[in-house]
């Protein structure tokens, strides 16, 4: 256990950062939610379950999450089964296309879908043209949660699909063959063997989807669904100093999210021995017949197309001259892109987001590599705890962190760089960094574990000081992982929704996502300009992912299952 100054500095810095920017805000939330004039009390929390409208909001959030989870499962399960158990031409291409919905935050897609679902929007018009409806249908008015459910399910089903494919692949095929051999028809095999064995992993995925939907802010906000928990928290930010109910709600969301996350890890981890002897001779995948391949393509193709609709809708809104009572826009134009570039707010927003994402990424690389290095190479006592704490943000919704920051820092450091009401940029960058730290940390861990320590030992043996070893040997060897992690951090920070919406209160500090939100209800054709910004964001995120994929190859999938 080498203790040199470098190790100590790194350790202290990491601890200080996490203490101030993770532990303190969370503690602040706990304190404000659980303490009233008389000391510790559950009054505020209890209030959440007392008033009728509070309960109604809670129930609506719950219902929303359940619908999203069920829909995602309905879409993901058949597809995962087809992929896990069969081989057919073009499989890897389709598999990649299925992951596309993960690229776009549903917040952006919602901008386009709002118009599609509108009373005189594309869907209504299409149904009238197909004689499925007699007059224009206001989808969002009649079924307020519809837009949110569709957007979130379309965004999340790939997570469940990845999870399911992994669970199914883990099942030794001879277990299913033995069931078939002893008289079980294919459906009975699925029910008695496949499903029970896949269930632990599947359950973990379902909980993750549920929690995500339960805590998602951007999508309900765009669709104007205000009486759900995340949006109510957003609305209560202005009263943060006076009304403790906001804290109570945040606490509830935090407990729910952390609890769900823990359940999910427990469920996924309790892997019964899926095989007791040698691996079986049989391959798990059976080739599909010609008819089967056609059916598979129809099914998967349909899902991919539907999942692409939000992306498409954003593009169409961004370039559509007029889109009223027609299935597709009446004419096309690039004027909205021009207006986006011309507007002061959007130019500032782009500049803000780029700068913030860059700072956050640098911070994450330093912290992520530092903590991983302390754990893997230096094995400092307490480094493992540090590592575990740094992973906590996975279980904490951005909503909670942002709310915590406002409460903590505007109170503690008023009118300084740390006061979000004065200048939110510092805290925005830090919040992005905190939220992405777990992914960066995993990437750094992977890089260090793949690089043998003997390289460093050889360098030291030949006269290089620890710092030189780091610079000349370690960092170059893990640079691919760090770069990949960094690109993802950057891209997802550019499109961070909850923190941006809550922390940025004045126009000059808006990041892209807040600018999009502000434009939607803004001036004439504001929604089109918002969509133009959205298209730009899609292009950015898409390129970033492609670049990372080319760097990392198959290991990409692990990034999205970082929670397991």
């Amino acid at each position, binding site marked *: 256990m080498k203790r040199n100054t470098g190790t100590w500095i790194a350790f202290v810095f990491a601890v200080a950062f996490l203490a101030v920017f993770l532990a303190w805000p969370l503690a602040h939330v706990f304190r404000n939610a659980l303490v009233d004039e008389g000391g510790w009390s559950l009054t505020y929390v209890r209030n959440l379950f007392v008033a009728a409208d509070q309960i109604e909001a809670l129930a609506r959030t719950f219902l929303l999450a359940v619908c999203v989870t069920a829909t995602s499962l309905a879409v993901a399960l058949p597809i995962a089964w087809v992929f896990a158990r069969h081989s057919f031409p073009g499989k890897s291409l389709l598999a990649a296309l299925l992951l596309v919905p993960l690229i776009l935050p549903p917040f952006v897609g919602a901008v386009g879908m709002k118009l599609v679902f509108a009373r005189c929007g594309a869907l209504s018009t299409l149904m009238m043209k197909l004689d499925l409806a007699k007059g224009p249908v206001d989808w969002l008015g009649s079924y307020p949660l519809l837009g949110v459910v569709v957007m979130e399910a379309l965004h999340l089903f790939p997570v469940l699909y990845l999870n399911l494919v992994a669970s199914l692949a883990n099942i030794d095929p001879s277990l299913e*063959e*033995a069931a078939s*051999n*002893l*008289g079980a028809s294919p459906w009975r*095999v699925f029910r008695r063997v496949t499903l029970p064995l896949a269930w632990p992993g599947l359950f973990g995925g379902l909980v993750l989807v549920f929690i995500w939907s339960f805590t998602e802010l951007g999508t309900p906000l765009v669709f104007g669904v205000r009486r759900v928990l995340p949006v109510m928290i957003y609305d209560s930010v202005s009263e943060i100093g006076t009304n403790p109910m906001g804290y109570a709600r945040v606490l509830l969301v935090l407990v729910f999210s952390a609890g769900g996350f823990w359940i999910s890890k427990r469920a996924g981890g309790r892997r019964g*021995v899926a095989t*007791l002897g040698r691996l079986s*001779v049989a391959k798990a995948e059976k080739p599909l017949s010609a008819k089967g391949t056609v059916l598979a393509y129809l099914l998967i193709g349909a899902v991919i197309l539907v999942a692409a609709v939000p992306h498409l809708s954003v593009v169409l809104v961004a370039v559509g001259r007029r889109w009223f009572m027609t299935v597709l826009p009446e004419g096309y134009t690039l004027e909205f892109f021009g207006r986006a570039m011309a507007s002061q707010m959007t130019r500032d927003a782009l500049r803000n987001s780029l700068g913030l994402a860059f700072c956050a990424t640098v911070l994450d690389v330093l912290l992520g590599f530092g903590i991983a290095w302390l754990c893997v190479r230096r094995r400092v006592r307490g480094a493992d705890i540090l590592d575990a704490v740094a992973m906590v943000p996975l279980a904490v919704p951005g909503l909670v962190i942002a709310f915590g920051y406002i409460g903590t820092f505007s109170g503690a450091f008023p009118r300084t760089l740390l006061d979000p009401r004065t200048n939110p940029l510092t805290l925005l960058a830090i919040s992005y960094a905190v939220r992405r730290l777990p992914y960066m940390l995993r990437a750094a861990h992977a890089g260090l574990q793949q690089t043998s320590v003997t390289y460093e030992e050889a360098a030291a043996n030949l006269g290089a000081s620890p710092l030189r070893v780091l610079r000349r040997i370690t960092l170059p060897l893990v640079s691919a992982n760090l770069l990949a992690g960094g690109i993802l951090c950057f891209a997802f920070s550019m499109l961070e929704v909850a923190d941006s919406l809550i922390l940025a209160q004045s126009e000059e500090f808006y990041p892209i996502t807040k600018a999009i939100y502000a434009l939607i209800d803004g001036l004439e054709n504001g929604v089109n300009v918002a969509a133009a910004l959205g298209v730009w964001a899609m292009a950015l995120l898409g390129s970033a992912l492609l670049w990372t994929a080319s760097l990392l190859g198959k290991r990409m999938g692990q990034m999205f299952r970082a929670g397991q």
Partner: protein
Amino acid sequence: MKKSETPNHTAIDVRNVSKRFGEITALDDVSFTVAPGELFFLLGPSGCGKTTMLRILAGLETADNGEVLFDGRDTRNLPPHRRGAPMVFQNYALWPHLRVSENVAFGLVEQKRPGQEITERVRRTLERVGLAGMDDRSPGELSGGQQQRVVLARALILNPNVILLDEPLSNLDARLRAEMREEIETLHGETDITFVYVTHDQAEALSLADRMAVMNEGHIEAIGTPRELYHYPPSVFCADFLGESNLVPGTVRARDGEVLHVRTSLGSWHAVYRGSRPPAAGAAVTCLVRPEHVRPDGGGGNTWEARIESVRLNGSTVTVALSAGDFALRATLLNESTLGLQPGTTVRWRASIENTVVLP
């Protein structure tokens, strides 16, 4: 629907079955029959296609060509879950989420038998395989031998016509293997179920089989009883695979009924031929002498001189490595201290005419 030539006399009839996996030919025109109640072995080295053949019998693979008949009925359109041929899988395939009793009861549940009957039959079958009282354990808690018995019980409980076994003993240590071998033999003897048993272990096959097929690279080399195939193997491959062999090439001089007069480089020999097409005079043949049939010369039979290269003690036997000119031969003798064989000396050896076999 074709029926077998001797109706009701074959439990399984495999006709001209071929199977390819991409470039690889796993089975090439394989045919054999299995009589009802037989303990039939498919024996061969890894990659010879025996497991593929078994899986085709189970319906887990489909043959490219040929037919498989169960009791005279074509199984081409019969999916695995309706074949009634439970299989003992090589890696057991015990379901980890089900207890022992539930594993064993699986097939009965699929047959929709009443609960009472199932419980009773499970109890009896577990007793029969020596696992009484283990109903509530989970498979992970059992030893290898116990797991093996659960898998057997799972198949036996269904009272099937056929049980398929895919190298069931290969995961067990030597002592357990010997024990389980006897158990399988007993279990087979107590019922009239046809067993089709796949293995690469020739000792297993020789000791248990009623009849066996030796397979090599996707085709069948020989079918017969263990005795027939061991003593009168129909090919060099069979000779080598089923036991140790000394192979000596030669030319046929003359024939007298079953006995052939063969000129070999070790001398002029008489050897036995039991095949169906005796070689003509002048034909090149190979003579087989098993090492256990090579003795120090005591008069009579085929003799030759050879130098002793080494003497190795195996326990109850002694292996003597011999060289005669270009030939390396082996003798396996019982361990008797009076042998006094010294490496480096040249001794005369013999093998009786009955034990010198001409291979076709």
